[in-house]
């Protein structure tokens, strides 16, 4: 039938292409000619063949997809591929809160807070969540009061299961826990000898296979094909094997995931040791917790975990290890750098900046646990990990928008709101993380694309630093703005909000309120250089150079050439306090011909001075401290020395210092994060003007 050279091309998945391939094949014979006519019997047969081929090809394609981590779609396939990389996908993690728990009127000598003691949270969106202790704690009773200073409680419903080991029916010693939302960090596995011998041993999760031997009491954990969890045991080579009659008892907490985040007030359900007169003080609100790791996250994390090999050596290793912590902390961003890169190099330390999800900084406990439980076990022995808080630089944006009323039916308020949304959205994608760049052009473009009616727009940017001054001890604060700053005069330069209170150093009982920080307008210092603009002619002797201006102490000398013109003028002393400097060149009295030499002076612009001021009872601006700090305009650094207010006049006690950068491209590196404060009503200001016609 078919010619010797004809081949069926079967590389396509599309039905019509397959059918056309079959038709092309049939063209090479002349027994059956009616393949092109839809009504023919041959066409019906081709349909069946093509459909069958397409069905098989699709099926094989899906099978092949599931064989690779990159293309697998089913969770069970992804999990199984990840297992080859020794990666156990993260389970759901319970939100975890910390409380101080006091039991009153206790008549015993000691009191035990049992495992799975249940607390009920306040209502969150109409639901009260169960929180439980995951370990038993015993404390001594003193004065009829038992104090549990820190009790960690996790959200979830406690549950337990027991399995009797039977090598005939379950020769692989694999046991299924039929829960998809269990928090595996709460999983506890006990193996009881037998139903008659109730002594038991605690098995822990196998983490490092190098240290396992035939007597290691470990279990292995994996996510099973249906998203529940399997535990299985050793083979007497890697981990101790179970024996017939053993009873495996597992207890765990099944969590509702992230819903209970933020719970902070709890009541005890029932009693502890028969006592129900209790006091609960919240220490830290429930963490975010997390839902079960998504397929995308597994695909992303598994190869990285594999390449890190449970060792933190490179920057990426650290980031992976920290992101994959099993403490239940979730982070928006992690940045790591070597101490040698610091402004003041610190050798032998690796610096880690972490921006936690839903908070600005980590708590001291969280930092401690990250260092001891997560980073230290995998980092190089001689390298000391140091956690630093993110250093937030807040951006205050003012956008001026000009729009054409004829091109839109939106009101100016609607345009204003749309522009604000566009700015917030772009900020959410571009900023708020480490190593990000703020560019005013991006924002200008985003605003321009809001509506066709927007003719033009401009953005002005201010940078803010917020910090909590120490109200008891005067301290030094260094604020890195990360961009060169503009030299300001009076209110256009550095400003601070809110006002602060100081004690009058001359009369400590006298409190001065309403104190602000500003730049000293005449803080320009001395001369940087003098440039010759006209060398003049005929100088027989070196002329005298005098610096005139409002400062003091600047001196310079001229150098003349053998032809009698001025080659250069060198600054000898920079002087101080100049805002303006004029270079006067006076020929030597004995010189009869020298004339016309002229030069200009450049003032030192790098550093400025900050001062504090207040308005006194007669509303007269009074300088309180003339040198409270310095400002480095080039590096964008403000330093406050011995800054010791006794009160900051807002609820938070937070002081904000605002400056204006000379550039609108601001990059963050190391631990710096550029962000827009969502709680600041002035963070994004949009002024909309209709174009007058």
């Amino acid at each position: 039938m078919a010619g010797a050279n004809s081949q069926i091309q079967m590389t396509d998945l599309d039905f019509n292409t397959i059918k056309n391939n079959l038709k092309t094949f049939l063209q090479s014979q002349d027994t059956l000619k009616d393949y092109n006519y839809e009504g023919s019997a041959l066409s019906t047969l081709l349909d069946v063949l093509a459909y069958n081929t397409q069905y098989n090809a699709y099926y094989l394609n899906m099978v092949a997809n599931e064989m690779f981590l990159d293309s697998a779609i089913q969770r069970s396939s992804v999990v199984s591929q990840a297992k080859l990389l020794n990666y156990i996908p993260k389970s759901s993690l319970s939100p975890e809160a910390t409380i101080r728990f006091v039991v009153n009127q206790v008549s015993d000598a000691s009191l035990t807070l049992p495992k799975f003691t249940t607390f009920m949270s306040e209502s969150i969106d109409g639901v009260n969540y169960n929180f439980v202790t995951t370990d038993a704690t015993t404390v001594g009773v003193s004065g009829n009061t038992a104090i549990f200073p820190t009790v960690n409680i996790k959200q979830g419903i406690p549950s337990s299961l027991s399995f009797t080991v039977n090598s005939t029916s379950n020769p692989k010693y694999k046991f299924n826990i039929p829960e998809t939302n269990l928090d595996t960090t709460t999983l506890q596995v006990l193996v009881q000898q037998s139903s008659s011998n109730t002594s038991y041993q605690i098995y822990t999760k196998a983490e490092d296979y190098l240290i396992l031997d035939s007597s290691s009491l470990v279990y292995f954990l994996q996510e099973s094909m249906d998203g529940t969890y399997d535990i299985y045991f050793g083979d007497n080579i890697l981990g101790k094997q179970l024996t017939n009659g053993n009873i495996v008892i597992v207890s765990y907490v099944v969590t509702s995931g992230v819903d209970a985040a933020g719970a902070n007030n709890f009541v005890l359900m029932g009693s502890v040791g028969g006592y129900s007169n209790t006091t609960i003080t919240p220490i830290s609100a429930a963490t975010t917790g997390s839902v079960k790791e998504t397929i995308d996250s597994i695909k992303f994390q598994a190869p990285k975990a594999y390449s890190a090999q449970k060792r933190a050596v490179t920057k990426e290793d650290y980031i992976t290890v920290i992101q994959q912590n099993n403490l239940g902390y979730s982070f928006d961003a992690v940045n790591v750098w070597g101490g040698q890169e610091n402004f003041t190099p610190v050798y032998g330390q690796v610096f880690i900046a972490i921006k936690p999800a839903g908070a600005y900084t980590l708590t001291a406990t969280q930092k401690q646990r990250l260092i001891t439980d997560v980073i230290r076990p995998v980092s190089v022995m001689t390298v000391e990990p140091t956690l630093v808080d993110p250093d937030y630089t807040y951006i205050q944006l003012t956008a001026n928008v000009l729009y054409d009323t004829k091109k839109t039916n939106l009101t100016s308020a609607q345009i204003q709101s749309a522009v604000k949304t566009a700015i917030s959205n772009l900020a959410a994608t571009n900023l708020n993380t480490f190593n990000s760049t703020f560019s005013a052009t991006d924002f200008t473009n985003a605003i321009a694309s809001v509506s066709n009616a927007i003719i033009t727009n401009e953005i002005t940017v201010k940078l803010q630093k917020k910090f909590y001054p120490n109200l008891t001890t005067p301290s030094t604060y260094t604020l890195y703005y990360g961009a060169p700053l503009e030299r300001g005069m009076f209110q256009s330069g550095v400003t601070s909000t809110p006002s602060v209170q100081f004690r009058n150093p001359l009369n400590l009982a006298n409190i001065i309120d309403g104190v602000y920080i500003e730049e000293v307008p005449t803080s320009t210092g001395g001369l940087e250089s003098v440039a010759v603009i006209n060398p003049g002619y005929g100088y027989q002797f070196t002329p005298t150079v005098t610096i005139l201006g409002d400062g003091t102490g600047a001196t310079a000398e001229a150098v003349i050439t053998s032809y009698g013109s001025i080659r250069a003028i060198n600054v000898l002393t920079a002087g101080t306090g100049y805002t303006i400097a004029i270079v006067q060149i006076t020929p030597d009295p004995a010189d009869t011909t020298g004339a016309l030499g002229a030069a200009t002076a450049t003032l030192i612009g790098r550093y400025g001075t900050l001062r504090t001021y207040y308005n006194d009872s007669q509303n007269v601006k009074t300088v309180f401290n003339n040198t409270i700090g310095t400002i480095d305009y080039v590096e964008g650094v403000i330093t406050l020395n011995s800054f010791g207010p006794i009160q900051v006049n807002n609820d938070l006690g937070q002081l904000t210092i605002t400056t204006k950068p000379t550039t609108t491209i601001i990059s963050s590196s190391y631990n710096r994060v550029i962000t827009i404060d969502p709680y600041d009503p002035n963070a994004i200001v949009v002024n909309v003007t209709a174009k007058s016609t």
Partner: protein
Amino acid sequence: MATINKIYSDIDFTFTKKPVTADIALSYDAQAVSRSIRNLLNTQNYDRLFNPDLGSQITGLLFENISPILAGTMESIITNLITAYEPRARLQSVRVSPQPDSNAYNVSITFYIENATLPTTTTILLERNR
């Protein structure tokens, strides 16, 4: 039916075998086209995989009350169907005669094919089968 050369050849839907060669029986030219037309008439829309337009809604009409108007509608449907999907048949006439007593329509289609001097007439009885 006088054919000079067999220009159309198709598998016979009866799938009988030729007595001598034991190969599958084929149908040729006018017979092949007639079979094809019958096949098209018996195909409803969406019957064919990935080709929902192929076929017609005639089967549905068989469940309506028999009337000459309906017969006219069927004629135009059949004409359109053959024109669209059976380019081999140059239609001369389509007659649909209602058979009220047997609850059926008698369809008589006359057409020319290439290489044939005389028209071919094929008769199909359309009746509902449930």
